């Protein structure tokens, strides 16, 4: 239609009335249509969508509540001994009618004469006799014995059985859970605090400071852990304090390294530089600008460290460096139970199940937490 030069002519000769001055003074944006939403609220909303993590979260809450109130469910305390009722099997009121946890034990390879002797076994306590055989000319049987009527304690219920001193294992288990959790929480909190401050300083200042601080952690991490722990226990005796301390000696190093890496990542960001050019002091830069951006990995690490601390505490208890008797912890119960594992497996079973559930729950919970605290996933469905 137009030749090339026609068009140029036209463009050049456009009348001024075609143009309108866009007034930049009117620069004014309207309100945003969305509602403001904070980081943690957003993380919480996303966490709620993760079913497995939600389940583990409620599992943890349930166990914590149990550890607080369960020791008051029955009339036994964790120290109360019943010398007549040692190593009793579990007996639970309603379940006993169904044949589960009914306070019975199977005795094997007993002389038939003994089982039938009313002075040794009251007739009411022998529920079933089976497997008749003759060994070396002696009549031998197996028998299901109701331990509670055998010990003449028909009105006693040890829900999870009793230990070698006749202490109620139900009460001791949840007392032990409480102690283990407390130790783990305190150990992890101290680890996180020390590690965060140490890592923050090391990562923020960098250079020679960083190099020196990291060398120190390497030396500490190189010292055999058990030696340190034993030294501590020699120095301060066994007890909650020295166990927490023992778990802290090297426990914070991982956190320090993590936080240091986070600081290296964030300290050169433009918003940190911007704050520096405004004269924001170092302390504010560290705690207000950089740390909040690393809070996700730190929380996640803390949650992963809790089952680790529970396990470490159990391990220490297991090798005899646990709490002072008669205080229980899951580790001490396991350690006691393991000595009679073949005769009384239930003494190991309950604490083992509990510690497994606890550790799995904390790990799954931490996984979900990590995903929901990850800022790169923000705003995704």
């Amino acid at each position: 239609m137009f030749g090339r030069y026609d068009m140029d002519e036209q463009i050049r000769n456009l009348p001024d009335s075609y143009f309108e001055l866009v007034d930049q003074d009117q620069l004014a944006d309207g309100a945003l249509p969305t509602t403001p939403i904070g980081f943690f609220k957003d993380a919480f909303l996303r966490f709620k969508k993760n079913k497995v993590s939600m389940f583990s979260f409620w599992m943890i809450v349930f166990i914590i509540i149990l550890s607080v109130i369960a020791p008051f469910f029955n009339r036994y305390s964790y120290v109360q001994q019943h010398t007549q009722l040692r190593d009793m099997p579990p007996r639970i009121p309603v379940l006993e009618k169904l044949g589960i946890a009914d306070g019975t034990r199977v005795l094997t390879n007993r002389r038939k004469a003994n089982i039938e002797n009313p002075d040794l076994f009251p007739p009411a306590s022998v529920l079933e006799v089976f497997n008749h055989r003759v060994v070396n000319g002696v009549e031998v049987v197996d028998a299901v014995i109701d331990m509670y009527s055998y010990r003449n304690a028909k009105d006693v219920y040890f829900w999870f059985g009793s230990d070698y001193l006749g202490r109620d294992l139900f009460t001791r288990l949840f007392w032990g859970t409480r102690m283990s959790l407390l130790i783990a929480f305190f150990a992890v909190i101290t680890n996180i605090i020390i590690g965060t401050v140490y890592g923050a300083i090391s990562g923020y200042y960098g250079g020679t400071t960083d190099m020196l601080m990291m060398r120190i952690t390497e030396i500490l991490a190189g010292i055999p852990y058990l030696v340190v722990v034993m030294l501590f226990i020699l120095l301060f005796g066994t007890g909650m304090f020295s166990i927490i301390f023992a778990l802290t000696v090297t426990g914070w190093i991982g956190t320090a390294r993590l936080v240091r890496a986070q600081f290296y990542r964030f300290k050169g960001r433009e918003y940190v530089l911007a704050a520096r050019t405004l004269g924001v002091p170092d302390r504010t830069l560290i705690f207000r600008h950089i740390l909040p951006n690393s809070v996700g990995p730190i929380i996640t690490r803390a949650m992963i460290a809790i089952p680790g601390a529970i396990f470490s505490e159990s391990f220490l208890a297991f090798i005899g460096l646990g709490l002072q008797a008669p205080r229980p912890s899951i580790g001490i119960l396991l350690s006691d139970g393991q000595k009679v594992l073949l005769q009384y497996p239930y003494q190991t079973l309950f604490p083992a199940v509990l510690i497994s559930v606890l550790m799995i729950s904390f790990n799954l919970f931490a996984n979900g937490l990590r995903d929901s605290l990850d800022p790169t996933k923000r705003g995704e469905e």
Partner: protein
Amino acid sequence: MPSSEYLLEVQGLRQYFASGRGKNRLVVKAVDDISFGVKPAETFGLVGESGCGKTTTGRTIIRLCDPTAGRVFFDGREVSGRMTNDLRKYLTDNIAMIFQDPIESLNPRMTIEEIVGEGLKVRGLKDKAEIRRRVVEMLVKVGLNEEHATRYPHEFSGGQRQRIGIARAVIVKPKMIIADEPVSALDVSIQAQVINLLNDLKEELGLTILFIAHDLSVVKYFSNRIGVMYYGRLVEVAKGDDLYKNPLHPYTRALLSAIPQPNPLTERTRQRVDYVPDRDHDYSTEQPTMVEVEPEHFVLCSPSELLEYRRRIAQNV
């Protein structure tokens, strides 16, 4: 000695970054002996391709990095010496910076009010209501409104974020602003908006601006004087008009030839020239120095090039 003509004066500034040790030691001369001055209430454009050391220059002036050598004066006081609390306060009170990346430059965990109000807080303002009032006033100035104060950065567009960055810099009433490619990451349609805002604020508050950009098309419109950088060195400094009329250094010519022209007739005939240092200069016998070829027009050239440049100016005038 600093000249009283300049608000900011840079003399022989060098910034070298070293990496590796021993045999692997590698020194990057990000800024290599540059000198220029910025006059009060003017906009000085610093132009050069990516990686030529513009950001490093800005950051060294404001002491985000310590200079390897050279001196910087602000308002007669040397700001390149040993860092003291007093010097830091002097610098942070007088010079503010606007950053390049609209996403990276705002803390994702702080609200706009916290971000913009931080400078006030650092300066000892405690009264929450007063901070709020001044933040909102500033937000309105940059075209945002009160409702935006409680929002987080990720809810805003690139242009809005840059305006928030401007608000953060201006609220502390600095004398000078270093704007490091404030519009390079924005759509062309938004660029004008942000530049105009910066210009308005400059007029209103009497700011001096060091405006960094990677091409001439952006600085062209509102820089009083322009410095052209190439690989850590300043190759030409001139008033905006002089630079367009008489671009002397071959690199400046290359940059100018890269600007698209709004007139379709001339745009069609626009020829791009490229800059090849080894071809364009012969520095085997003579070393280049910064010379004032005409008043306020400096070029990095060797004596023989100087003769050639003088001749060219004489022809053109």
